[in-house]
């Protein structure tokens, strides 16, 4: 578009034809008051706060919806503009309650701010103020609609960004109410952003209600750790406790949004099950002890039980920091063990490393096609899903291969239902179809495969795509042939020249991989480690109730008399008490400095937002002291930055693929245990409001009619402790357990 020149408040500035006045003013740092305008939402022009004087126009014009034209002269602060702005301010205030002292938005309220500048001091309004009854919209967002100024930002956010048309403006005139249709609560993984977009105190954070005043809090920039994005956030704390998390703008990462998980998980930090004191188990009895005693106990335990260094095994969750991963593997390796792993929820580790993604977050926005395999991206990687959604709104098409039909917030063209045990053969068929269509040689092992129409259609779409992506998701982790599947997808991407987005391992797994928190050739991995050779386990942020894919073999191993289990953990629970011998209380999110590496490989470090509670200590410090006590060399760190610098020098493990062609028995009924998004990590699991939200309460075992018959279960039953839901939207011979409950073993 052509460059033009306009004049705002006497300054000559360049602009693009068609840009709005407000966009130019914002760029130039000229302040124009506004309520309905939001740079990431469509323009509504309904609040009228941004009225400015455009020379030649008889009336004041809204800056947000008036396109600039060459030579236009705009005055944002002359009498005409001020008169209009003050008028609008007065109208907005006549029905707005004067309850700033008890409003959680107080101190960060756009209305309050603008009123200071544009309001007149005495209101001449003598009539009764409007009171709006509330419906409530769920566990996360506190509504007080009497304060609503009808800017419709929340409505537009829902429809345009979250992809849920649940909020609307009902009624008309003065009686318009911004509300959802029914009171079931908002069903979105991004709902909390409505709080941020609401300029006033109509929508505020429910868990934050009355907790603190904004100006009393200490704000620290930080990075969220629940997914691969590493959304930029600000933690706000009061008296040493995180009270609220809000989004921090970063266009190439999270734009201005964050997921509800990133926003509300902090509540878990003050859960009653926090590990506050070091504890040791002596003769089956747990005792609180001082750190020194606990450390000595730990060192003795390690030395006494590991007859040789290879009897040590080290396991961690996907949510530790780069520094913690690095030091922990360094400790193990210096000690002489290569038994290190964080992939504790994967059932097939034969590929020795994960498939590398070949696309960046912002590139996802401009793809023309996506094939999603094994993922409900919306709940698992909300911000990446948001980018896919943007692409779809721009015309991209999406096909999925999943074992259940999911409620994506964008249109999918073709959803191929395939039970986990059949995904491999499905991909074989697609690969064969591709070979046939492209005219390349069909490998021998595909000779018997016969693609059907659906496979051909998927292949056609892949071939037609110019800059598409194949997305691999979390659901593949529990697939017994996940290595073969990733290998096939790699091949498919190669022959179609498409990109790969690997979303299988979430959290901070990129950091774990980067520092080699995995066994090299000789070591044992998270599956093979559970045998009689491992006598000492060191667990970092691992919850034995939830995290292991093979719970039973882990428990069997831990409970063995001669096995010594050290747990560095922020929380305690029954299973930890049963399985561990010593608990070293560790700082959790926001309580220690650390580093996250995101999907793009971007390294983002953060400092502690608050001190960790009780006697708990940052993980990296605990590991350092243990290493010192074990008399290992090279642990003379003074701060975590040194750890980080060293960690980043280590080179990343390369993925290597064998030509895998696993045969599996696909007549068996398989069960796939998929955690609901707020049951993924130790902190979210304990975040009260998240757990009470709609998504937090996900807990169903989905099964088809005929499979239910084969299993002899019906709709009123529990399957592995989870309520059964019989539906057509799930593959045959398969049970999809989507749950917030701890994993249960089949038959157990």
């Amino acid at each position, binding site marked *: 578009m052509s460059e033009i020149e306009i004049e705002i408040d006497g300054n000559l500035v360049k602009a693009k034809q068609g840009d709005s006045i407000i966009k130019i003013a914002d760029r130039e740092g000229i302040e124009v008051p506004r309520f309905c305008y939001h740079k990431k939402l469509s*323009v509504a*022009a*309904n*609040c*009228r*706060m941004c*009225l400015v004087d455009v020379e030649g126009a*008889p*009336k*004041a014009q*809204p800056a947000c*919806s008036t*396109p600039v034209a060459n030579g236009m002269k705009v005055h944002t602060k002359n009498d005409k503009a001020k*008169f*209009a702005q003050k*008028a*609008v301010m*007065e*109208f*907005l205030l*006549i*029905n707005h309650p004067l309850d700033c002292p008890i409003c959680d938005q107080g101190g960060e309220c756009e209305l309050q701010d603008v009123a200071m500048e544009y309001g007149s001091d005495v209101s*001449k*309004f*003598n*009539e*009764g103020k409007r009171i709006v009854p509330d419906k409530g919209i769920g566990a996360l967002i506190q509504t007080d609609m009497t304060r609503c*100024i*009808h800017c419709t930002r929340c409505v537009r956010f829902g429809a345009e960004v979250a992809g849920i048309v649940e909020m609307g*403006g009902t*009624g*008309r*005139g*003065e*009686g*318009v109410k911004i509300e959802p249709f029914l009171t079931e609560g908002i069903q979105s993984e991004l709902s909390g952003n409505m709080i941020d977009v609401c300029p006033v105190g109509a929508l505020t954070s429910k868990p934050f209600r009355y907790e603190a005043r904004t100006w009393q809090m200490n704000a620290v920039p930080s990075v969220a750790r629940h997914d691969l994005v590493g959304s930029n956030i600000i933690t706000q704390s009061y008296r040493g406790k995180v009270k609220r998390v809000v989004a921090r703008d970063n266009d190439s990462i999270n734009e201005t949004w964050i997921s509800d998980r990133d926003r509300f998980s902090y509540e878990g930090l003050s859960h009653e099950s926090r590990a506050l004191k070091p504890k040791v188990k002596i003769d089956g009895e747990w005792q609180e002890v001082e750190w020194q005693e606990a450390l000595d106990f730990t060192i003795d335990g390690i030395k006494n039980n590991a007859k040789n260094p290879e009897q040590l095994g080290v396991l961690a969750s996907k949510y530790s920091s780069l520094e913690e991963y690095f030091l922990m593997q360094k400790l193990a390796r210096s000690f002489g063990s290569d038994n290190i792993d964080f992939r504790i929820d994967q059932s097939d580790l034969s590929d020795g490393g994960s498939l590398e993604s070949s696309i960046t977050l912002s590139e996802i926005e401009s793809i023309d096609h996506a094939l999603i395999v094994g993922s409900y991206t919306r709940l698992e990687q909300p911000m990446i899903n948001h980018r896919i959604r943007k692409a779809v709104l721009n015309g991209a098409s999406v096909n999925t291969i999943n074992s259940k039909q999911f409620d994506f917030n964008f249109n999918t063209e073709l959803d191929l239902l395939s039970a986990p045990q059949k995904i491999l053969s499905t991909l074989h068929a697609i690969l064969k179809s591709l070979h046939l269509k492209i005219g390349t040689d069909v490998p021998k092992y595909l000779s018997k495969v016969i693609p059907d129409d659906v496979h051909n259609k998927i292949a056609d779409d892949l071939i037609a795509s110019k800059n598409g992506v194949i997305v691999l998701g979390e659901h593949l982790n529990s697939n017994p042939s996940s290595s073969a599947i990733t290998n096939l997808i790699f091949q498919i991407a190669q022959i179609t020249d498409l990109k790969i987005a690997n979303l299988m391992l979430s959290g901070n797994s990129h950091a774990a991989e980067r520092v080699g928190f995995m066994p090299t050739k000789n070591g044992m991995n998270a599956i093979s480690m559970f045998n009689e050779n491992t006598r000492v386990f060191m667990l970092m942020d691992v919850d034995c109730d939830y995290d292991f894919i093979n719970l039973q073999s882990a428990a069997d191993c831990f409970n063995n008399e001669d096995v010594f289990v050290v747990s560095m953990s922020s929380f305690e629970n029954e299973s930890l008490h049963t399985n561990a011998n010593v608990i070293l209380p560790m700082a959790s999110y926001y309580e220690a400095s650390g580093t996250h590496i995101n999907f793009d490989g971007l390294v983002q470090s953060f400092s502690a937002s608050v001190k960790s509670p009780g006697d708990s200590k940052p993980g990296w410090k605990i590991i350092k002291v243990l290493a010192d006590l074990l008399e290992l060399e090279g642990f003379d760190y003074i701060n975590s930055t040194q750890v980080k610098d060293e960690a980043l020098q280590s080179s990343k493990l390369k993925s290597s693929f064998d030509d895998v062609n696993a045969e599996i028995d696909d007549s068996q009924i398989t069960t796939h245990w998929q955690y609901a998004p707020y049951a993924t990590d130790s902190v979210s699991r304990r975040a009260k409001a998240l757990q009470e939200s709609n998504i937090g309460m996900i807990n169903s075992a989905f099964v088809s009619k005929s499979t239910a018959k084969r299993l002899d279960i019906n709709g009123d039953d529990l399957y592995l402790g989870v309520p059964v839901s019989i539906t057509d939207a799930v593959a045959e011979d398969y049970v999809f357990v989507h749950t917030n409950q701890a994993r249960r073993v089949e038959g157990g």
Partner: protein
Amino acid sequence: MNEVCFKNLGKENPASFTTYEANGGYQVWRKILKGELTPDEIIVELKTSGLRGRGGAGFPTGLKWSFMPRNQEVQKYVVCNSDEGEPGTCHDRDILRYNPHSVIEGMAIAGFVMNATVGYNYIRGEFMEPYYRFEEALKDAYKAGLLGKTLQGSPISFDLYTHLGAGAYICGEETALLESLEGKKGQPRFKPPFPANVGLFGKPTTINNTETFASVPEILSRGGQWFADLGVENSGGTKCFSVTGSVKHPANFEVPMGTPFSKLLELAGGLKEGRTLKAVIPGGSSTPVLTAETAMNMTMDYDSIANAGSMLGAGSVIVMDDTTCMVKTLARLAHFYYDESCGQCTPCREGTGWLYRMLQRILDGNGKKEDLDLLLSVSEKIEGNTICALGDAAAAPVVSFINNFRDEFEYYIKNGKSIIEGEHNLIEEATSV
């Protein structure tokens, strides 16, 4: 009188296809279908005729039609605004009831000129009788092969449908009407973009009033100049006026533009027995009220009414006599705008309620001295600051009523009752007779 839109009034079965055809109807459309008229020729005639939009704003119709990107290869739409809701206005209803084919033909011609193959007539939801008449007419026009695809062997297609409203004055505003046609709340869109670029279903659209469309066939069949000559400068042709209020025979009249108001009053039988003229709203409730003296000196055309300080608007002449309480009347109008504000933009949503409540309070006998100036200042703050013209429409009566009849308002506030004997507050509470 009654030469254009009401041409068939008084004839037997005025609404029927036969009557319409027998009186020269569909001649223009047939000519077009035979390829004997071009879009450009039609636009020239319309410009010559001086026809201005009859929906209220008075925008020249020929000019409006020429704005449509007729050569763009996208679906385009023609929409007729039969939402008639302006208090005091009811002539579009009679056009639909007595001359529906003129609207059909006018819309078909518009479709041809702008290369739009689909049209919708948005009829207000309460107009069931007019709706049935119009549907009947549509059926006949389809039967006669005058609507549909590739008509009479020509490449021209035009399909026409009715859409029924469900009760909202704001849907008369053209962009609110489009929203409503799309199955949404009738909330006006901000402009730009204008409907000619982004209209119905996001496609280029032209919207005209019922009377505007109904005038087109006659103009084209008798010539633009003929029409222009009926009226006066700047106001070509005839105009339908609804004359209501304190007159003996309230009725619709189609008279030449420039007819003196006094003449129109006479046509309506003059004032009721023993009454004297007090005030006149010349163009519907949204236009400023005029005093008797000013009204008696004006003629019914755009310029003269503008000079008098009001607007021709929708041509709804509301006559008030010496027994009319201006405070109560204004309160009633304020209630209307308060009730009908769509609620989208701040000044109108909040301001109309404020105005209405103040006036209601005055009616209740609780007025304060400052209220009048506050009413004026609130009106001033609404005016020009809203998305659509409803805000201005709500402000205009307040300003003109108070400015022209301030004494009466002051009396009411001071005495807690009307200067008019026996007037009482009836807005919210129904008092006993």
